[in-house]
């Protein structure tokens, strides 16, 4: 056999049969399964042990994962399954998390000294834009508001998610009563709403302020899980009038995030958005101790500005990465070989755009091509920061649908967790682009060495890695983003999964899209989550 199998430090090459290794484009090494001759009364393997598969000629690691299931049978064989360490680690923790949030609902009134001040999430008087704000107003016109009267709204989002705030940005506008005796203070608290610190102190002004940013590494105290706004009257009293109001516009908070060096970053919070690689680096550093992320393995190429990402109902790493992929489909995360120190390097890199593998259909090819995947219209729904329903409709021209006189529309819910206008536009356009033509999906069997342009080697079927582009000779292509419009008998696919059977010494690659089958449909249903 050309594969060697290790479970922990023990070798099982001679005892195992039907070794299958799988890797996927988003995730890297996905699974190792094998049957091993072992009597029922023998002890179980230690769960979570590393399972590693090597090529015996080159000593390269071609598969691996974390031992999760061992099915024992009375016929003296055990069926063992290991899940790729990347997939396993990214699903270990499901927890509430936020990165950047504009939702006004997360600010609520915590205290006030008088009934004569109240707060709501509305537009302010005279606003010419449909934009909600945190508005504090005097509701008892003609009655005095005395020195010391005030109202505090707090945001405990970071505390709920077990994180701390990295920064806040906001603008402010008050009514014409504005004076130095009316104050808007930004407060921060430690856990349990104690240890208050005033981070910023403004006089109310009738002119709309410029963007105020109070960030970690600057004025904001580090490590604070609760923020607050304090609307306050000082020094003298004044009767409330029609103009007694103060509005905090478009407050955007950011979480303090970890960098690839394993420490919380002290810079960068003046951006009122996060970048995809910042999100994924923070998640891996925080929640995946077995994965190793470094500057070399995470690409900072993406400029996609994510301005809303908050999951109060909890999310795990793979779902988070899937949401990132919706915004930034050009980058994908993968975990491959284990390093000598026992950790598994985590890669977040652009998908290759140059052709990597050269193959032919000689060993088997099958390509169902469902046209039901074509759309020319999409509606993206969500909730505004104030919690109101909103949606955005985008269209594209699809010649085949136009010729048939058909309109096909899909709906994508972003909920309040990741809705923003920028997000909706990006997600909608990406969906349309990937559904403009029927997918060029199919499976190809590779049973002989094929040429790999990236390494310059003829690699064995067990070395094929998903995520790369494969040029296949011998098929009539259909035009899509990867293929030329003129049929020339050669077409290019993206390898989305590769399953290698050690017994058959052949790899079956799924191309462009996962094959539609019952077990995959069930898995997708069980993994699906409803966005709030």
């Amino acid at each position, binding site marked *: 056999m050309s594969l060697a199998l290790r479970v922990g430090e023990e070798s099982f090459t001679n005892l195992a049969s039907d070794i299958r290794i799988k890797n996927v484009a988003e995730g890297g090494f996905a699974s190792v399964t094998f049957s091993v001759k072992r009597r029922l009364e023998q002890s179980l393997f230690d769960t979570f042990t590393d399972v590693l598969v090597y090529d015996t*000629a080159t000593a390269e690691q071609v598969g691996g994962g974390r031992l999760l299931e061992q099915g024992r049978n009375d016929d003296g064989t055990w069926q063992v399954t290991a899940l790729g360490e990347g997939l396993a680690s990214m699903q270990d923790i499901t927890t509430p998390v936020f990165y950047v949030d504009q939702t006004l609902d997360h600010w609520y009134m915590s205290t006030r000294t008088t009934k004569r001040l109240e707060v709501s999430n509305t537009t302010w008087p005279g606003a010419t834009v449909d934009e909600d704000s945190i508005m504090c107003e005097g509701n008892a016109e003609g009655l005095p508001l005395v020195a010391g009267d005030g109202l505090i709204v707090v945001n405990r989002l970071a505390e709920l998610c077990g994180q701390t705030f990295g920064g806040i940005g906001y603008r402010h506008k008050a009514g014409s009563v504005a004076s130095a005796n009316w104050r808007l203070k930004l407060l921060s608290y430690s856990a349990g709403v104690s240890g208050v610190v005033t981070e910023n102190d403004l006089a109310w002004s009738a002119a709309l302020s410029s963007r105020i940013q109070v960030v970690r590494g600057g004025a904001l105290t580090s490590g604070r899980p609760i923020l607050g706004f304090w609307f306050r009257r000082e020094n003298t009293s004044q009767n409330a009038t029609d103009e007694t109001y103060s509005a905090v516009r478009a407050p955007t908070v950011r979480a303090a995030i970890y960098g690839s060096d394993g420490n919380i970053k002290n810079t960068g919070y003046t951006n009122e958005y996060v970048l995809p690689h910042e999100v994924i680096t923070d998640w891996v550093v925080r929640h995946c101790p077995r994965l190793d992320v470094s500057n070399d393995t995470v690409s900072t190429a993406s400029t996609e500005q994510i301005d809303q990402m908050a999951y109060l109902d909890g999310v795990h790493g793979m779902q988070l990465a899937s949401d990132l992929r919706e915004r930034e489909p050009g980058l994908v995360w993968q975990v491959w070989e284990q390093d000598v120190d026992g950790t598994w390097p985590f890669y977040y890199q652009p998908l290759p755009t140059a052709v990597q593998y050269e193959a032919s259909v000689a060993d088997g090819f099958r390509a169902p091509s469902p046209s039901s995947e074509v759309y020319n219209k999409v509606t993206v729904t969500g909730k505004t920061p104030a919690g109101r329903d909103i949606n955005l409709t985008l269209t594209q021209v699809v010649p085949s649908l136009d010729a048939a006189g058909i309109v096909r529309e899909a709906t994508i819910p972003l909920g309040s967790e990741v809705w923003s206008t920028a997000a909706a536009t990006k997600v909608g356009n990406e969906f349309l682009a990937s559904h403009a033509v029927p997918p060029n999906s199919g499976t190809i069997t590779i049973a002989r060495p094929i040429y790999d342009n990236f390494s310059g080697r003829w690699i064995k079927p067990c070395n094929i890695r998903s995520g790369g582009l494969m040029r296949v000779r011998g098929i009539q292509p259909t035009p899509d983003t990867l293929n030329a419009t003129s049929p020339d008998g050669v077409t290019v696919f993206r390898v989305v999964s590769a399953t290698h059977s050690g017994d058959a010494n052949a790899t079956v690659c799924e191309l462009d899209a996962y094959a539609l089958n019952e077990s995959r449909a069930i898995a997708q249903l069980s993994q699906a989550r409803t966005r709030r």
Partner: protein
Amino acid sequence: MPLYQFVDEIDASPTVLLDLDDGSPLNVSDGTSTSPPRRRVSSYGSSARDGDVVAQRAYADRTIKIALDFRIGSTAEEQSEAIQNLGRLLDGPQWLLWQHEAKTEPVFYRTRFGEIEVDDSIMDDKPQRLVTLNITAEPFGYGERESGSVTISNDPTSGTNKMCATLPTIKGDVASPLVLDFLPDNLGSDILAATLAIKTAIAAPIYLAKPIASSPPTGWTYTSSYADATAVGGNCLRMQRASGVTTAGNGASIPALLVPEPGDYRLFARVFGGTGQTLSISQMGGGDAHEVAIDYPFAWQWYDCGVFRCPSSKPRVDSLMASTPFGNDYAKFQFEVTNPSVGDTRLSAWVLVPAGLDAALSDKLALVHVENWQATDTFRLDAISDAVYWWSSDPTASVTNEYNGYAGGLPVVVPGVDNQLWMAQLSAAITETLDVDWFYYPQYLYDRPAAS
């Protein structure tokens, strides 16, 4: 008389547990067969193409059929006792020795279990029975152990076996797993052990001379032939980075190397460097660069630079085209060094180790990590048991040996072709030699000729 005996072990004079043909009371009769085992094949074919592709093949278990009858006049008790012995022996694994009458060398079959058919033909006071045994056994018959020893140096330029030893002619019909014993030594090193079975042995070691200093970039100073007694050949290329320089050190060139056989090789670089340095190496005309972290500060090491196909331009060809001559059998590498601080990097040699040659019948490579090797202990790579372990002649010795698993495949030897053993001690000095005892059991499909 041919010999059919159940014995206790593979040995020139083993203890006989049951003789099937000594007439007391068993005799082997017609209908006996020890045919070679059948094949299991994984092959692919389609109507789109002529011929099949054989992806993998292996031998299935062997079935040995032995027809027995009893000595005329043997008693019912003798016969019962014989059948009982057969039943006990065929219940589990045993060694079955078989030697053809006119031959001098036996083969030993490892039986798994057997079935007994008894045909009671005469049941009076001089009974006669015909017994047929259908025995399932491991595919190959084994010959007696073949062993030897070899000393391999860690230096591609000196020693009798310079990082590679040719094994004597291998006996048997099919590939055999090899056991390697590394004798007690003060090694605390990572080990590379690779076997190559190929029709004609390739000239070994495949060794690239130290790089030639040409034009260093600004801020770098190159000294070719810098004297260093611990370097391969006593001198090396020294690349020094001046303060404040951020560019990589490139421009030094490695001579082109005539590669004896096309295929995949693992490249090892003998480097002396400091923490944080990186060596980036690529083959001209073939694939992306490989980055290697120089993480053993200020000690000469063989650094593993990964797998390359050499020569890069030579395509993989099948049988018809294999003899067509190609030009350019040279591999040419280029490299650069990045150094985060002031200091030097020294390079003295590069070695290519076969890791999947096109023409190889078998190519196995193992990288083993060991630490704190005790001087009383032998470290063994055991391809027969598929295991890697220590064994000690002194059970009271402190157990500080550390072994963290191995990557790759354990060694295999193939009869009928040349077999080479390639070794390197990655973290040891080039003056360290490795004493290796090896042994294997030849494996036969049928019986064995005297000489092989």
